[in-house]
């Protein structure tokens, strides 16, 4: 990767349409099988089982007949950190450099052979996107043969998380090299497992920096810092699009889309009366 590549780097991101999501869990299953996620003998305790992609259930809190439900799939948010400089909450705290921010892709890595399991990154991540291997990885007999050779299985005592199916990016880059255009990975050549598995097409994945990509067209990210909070960069100019806990300044690359106001309001915390002032505020310019 050359230095000049830094300038026209990719910034891979995702937008999930929560109005299309049915909560079927296909994204979770496809993610687990794509990324060699091991099984636990007893999966009933969800607080120590590994789910890189996890679907949360949201309700509007009203009683019947006004009850409404929404499902929110949560992969690793691949935070750009305060000011989008790459100091993600987890990357900046890792004592052994087992996780870093790829300035060429915007993807937060996790190197299993380097991690020694201090779990500081898990404490720092507000999205609970990081998972610890409490047990030795185990698969039902014979199933090891079906593991993907492109994804390294993890050992006990280390942290793992969603990588935006980075091995698929590596494969796409190889293909681009073969066809002599290494700097332009096609949108269809790099799609995550959850994106391709979603039966209702709720997930869109691509390069947020590339106006030709669908994800850019939906999100319309504002490249300038939010004038009200300089830690926030890349706010969506689409009024229906929000990010989780945007005000913390973590600058996630996973966006959510919903027509429903109560769903959008659940993306962050608001003091009394704040939501009404904030809800109509989006990126600095309306044309994008």
């Amino acid at each position, binding site marked *: *990767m*050359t230095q000049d590549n830094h300038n026209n780097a990719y910034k891979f991101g995702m937008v999930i349409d929560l109005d299309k999501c049915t909560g079927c869990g296909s994204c979770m299953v496809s993610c687990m099988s794509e990324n060699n996620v091991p099984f636990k003998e007893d999966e009933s305790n969800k607080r120590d089982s590994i789910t890189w992609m996890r679907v949360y259930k949201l309700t509007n809190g009203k009683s019947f007949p006004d009850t409404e439900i929404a499902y929110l799939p949560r992969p690793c948010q691949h935070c750009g950190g305060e000011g989008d400089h790459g100091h993600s909450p987890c990357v900046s705290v890792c004592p052994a450099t087992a996780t870093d921010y790829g300035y060429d892709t915007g993807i937060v890595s996790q190197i299993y052979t380097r991690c020694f399991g201090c779990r500081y990154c898990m404490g720092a991540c507000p999205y609970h996107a990081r998972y610890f291997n409490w047990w030795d990885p185990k698969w039902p007999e014979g199933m090891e043969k079906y593991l993907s050779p492109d994804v390294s*299985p993890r050992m006990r005592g280390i942290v793992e998380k969603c990588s935006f199916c980075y091995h698929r990016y590596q494969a796409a*880059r*190889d293909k681009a090299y*073969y066809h002599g255009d290494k700097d332009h990975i096609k949108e269809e050549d790099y799609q995550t497992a959850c994106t391709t598995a979603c039966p209702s097409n709720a997930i869109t994945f691509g390069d947020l920096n590339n106006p030709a990509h669908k994800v850019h067209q939906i999100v319309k990210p504002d490249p300038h810092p939010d004038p009200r909070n300089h830690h926030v960069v890349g706010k969506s100019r689409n009024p229906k699009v929000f990010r989780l806990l945007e005000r913390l300044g973590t600058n996630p690359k996973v966006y959510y889309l919903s027509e429903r106001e109560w769903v959008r309001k659940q993306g962050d915390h608001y003091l009394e009366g704040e939501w009404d002032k904030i809800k109509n505020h989006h990126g600095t310019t309306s044309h994008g």
Partner: protein
Amino acid sequence: MSELENKAKNDSTISAGEKIAQKIKDDKGLGQGVILFIIAFVVCFAGSTLLFPKLLYSKKEQPFNFDHYLHVYEAGDCEACHYLREDGSFSGIPKLETCMECHVEEPLGVTDDEVVFVKEYLAKDKEIPWHVYAKQPDCVFFSHAGHIDTGARMDFNECHGPIEETKTSRTYEENRITGYSRDIWGKNIFGIKKNSWDRMKMDDCAKCHKEETGHQGYCFQCHK
């Protein structure tokens, strides 16, 4: 009363420092001590440089000998067997199918190795379990497409050495603790490198990346 004490008594005007120097000089045991130290040092040094690698690495022979020199001559070039597929992935070591493109059910030569090949693998339609010298640990992603003609235009000798000139397959050595090929850590126990292909650790990759691209790379560039 010892000899030392006598000396000290007789010559009480000299300083403490001179006395100690004298004490050391007079100590006949010192010579033996030095010799013992040197012997111990040599034993430990030889043990660590000669014995330790033997203990650390297990030796494995290839299923049968493979003559790269002959095959390059017969097949024309390396790409006949090791090539990039259209999706950019690397074919690696050829499967039996590729061998059979030439070895059509009958031997082409008369060597013992070819007999093994035909009887044990070709006749039984069984893949040959080669030990891969250059195999990287499981956590490593290596892109051939990014390094050869399609990418950085490196010569494969730079990493694999002059393998096309070899007529025999050398013994494969495996690290008993990690299970990695010895080619990764390098032959020299002190890590001294004479050729670019002597060693293939992360630092070696990073050094070249730094020189060629100005950046040693983010983790995911080479890890999976």
